[in-house]
């Protein structure tokens, strides 16, 4: 527990990057990463929920009775998820339509609940915030990357804000990659690359 705040932040970007190292939060990671924009959008929504819930759980960690802590965490998380959903619906409607059911499902995303339980409920506010931001950013990068790879191979485009044609009109898209099985393949390859790099 002698880690500095910056270390808490950085660990989420590599050592504990959620979908690749912890292999948590796979449901949204696999389902919505059909384009880079969707992946990043989902990542940012999760980051917002993660940071807010970490903050609140950490603030209330001495008040919440341990027997009902999970219920309390879920209430806190669910509140922020609905906040995200309403705000997204009001100001980013197309993204809201694309992400659909996966926004409300952030409530049961084990990354969010996992950080509340494993970290925020045992640490003070600043490290919890850093942890939330780090893990959230890691999740966003991972989903963005996964989305970019799948979109590039499966559709020949990269969507940042608008769709950009990368391979030109003669490219024959490998549609398998944007279909659900492609998500598993892309994730598997990513894990493989991570393990090769991370091997000592």
């Amino acid at each position, binding site marked *: 527990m002698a880690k500095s705040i910056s270390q808490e932040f950085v660990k989420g970007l590599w050592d504990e990057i959620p979908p690749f190292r912890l292999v948590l939060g796979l449901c949204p990671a696999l389902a919505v990463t059909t384009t880079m924009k969707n992946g990043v959008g989902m990542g940012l929504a999760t980051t917002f929920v993660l940071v807010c819930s970490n903050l609140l759980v950490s603030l209330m960690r001495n008040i919440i009775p341990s027997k009902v802590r999970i219920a309390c965490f879920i209430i806190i998380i669910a509140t922020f998820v609905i906040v995200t959903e309403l705000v997204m619906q009001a100001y980013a409607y*197309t993204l809201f339509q694309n992400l659909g059911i996966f926004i409300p499902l952030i409530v049961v995303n084990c990354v969010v609940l996992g950080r509340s339980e494993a970290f925020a409920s045992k640490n003070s506010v600043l490290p919890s915030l850093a942890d939330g931001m780090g893990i959230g950013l890691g999740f966003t990068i991972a989903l963005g990357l996964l989305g970019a790879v799948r979109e590039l191979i499966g559709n020949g485009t990269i969507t940042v804000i608008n769709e950009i044609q990368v391979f030109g009109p003669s490219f024959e898209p490998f549609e398998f990659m944007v279909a659900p099985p492609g998500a598993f393949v892309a994730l598997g390859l990513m894990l493989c690359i991570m393990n090769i790099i991370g091997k000592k």
Partner: protein
Amino acid sequence: MRDMIKMVVVLTVLSAASGGLLAALKDGTKDAIENQVLQNEKAPALHAIFLNVSNDPVEDRFKVMDGDVERTVFIGKYDGEPKAVAFDSSGSGYGGDIGVIVGVNIEKDELIGVAVTTHKETPGLGARAKTDKTFIAQFKGNAIPDEYAVKADGGNVDVLSGATITSRGVAQAVTRAGRIYERIKPEILENLKK
């Protein structure tokens, strides 16, 4: 015992605070969300129903009371004259409610078009109700109010192949729209006079 009370108090306070916050936020974002739904879901459907209108139906809309339900009515003006209205209806499909916008010519009491807005039907099967032009065109030009049923149920609506339940849902929505129209017509006419 003290533990017990603490648990109950903490959970109650937390839930109440969360409920209050969300109610306030829901209220705050209501208009923005309604606007987004109009722009993103209703506008394309209205465009498909009202061909060659001289106004923007999303702009020209008013609300009427149908019993205790509030309904939004969109006006279609042709050469500046309000000749048609469109409003929402719904029927039960395979994956939940199918939202349908129905356009009615108020002079002839005739359907001028039907368009599916929101649905949760199976992609490639029921979801074709939104895109299949011939399916939707069947309703055009029919008198309203009228009963619609798919051919399998002894009616006159051709189903989308592989999507009988969806087709039934759309037929149901159009039938309901006829009933709604009957009820709200006096109010519509009164509003148009203004």
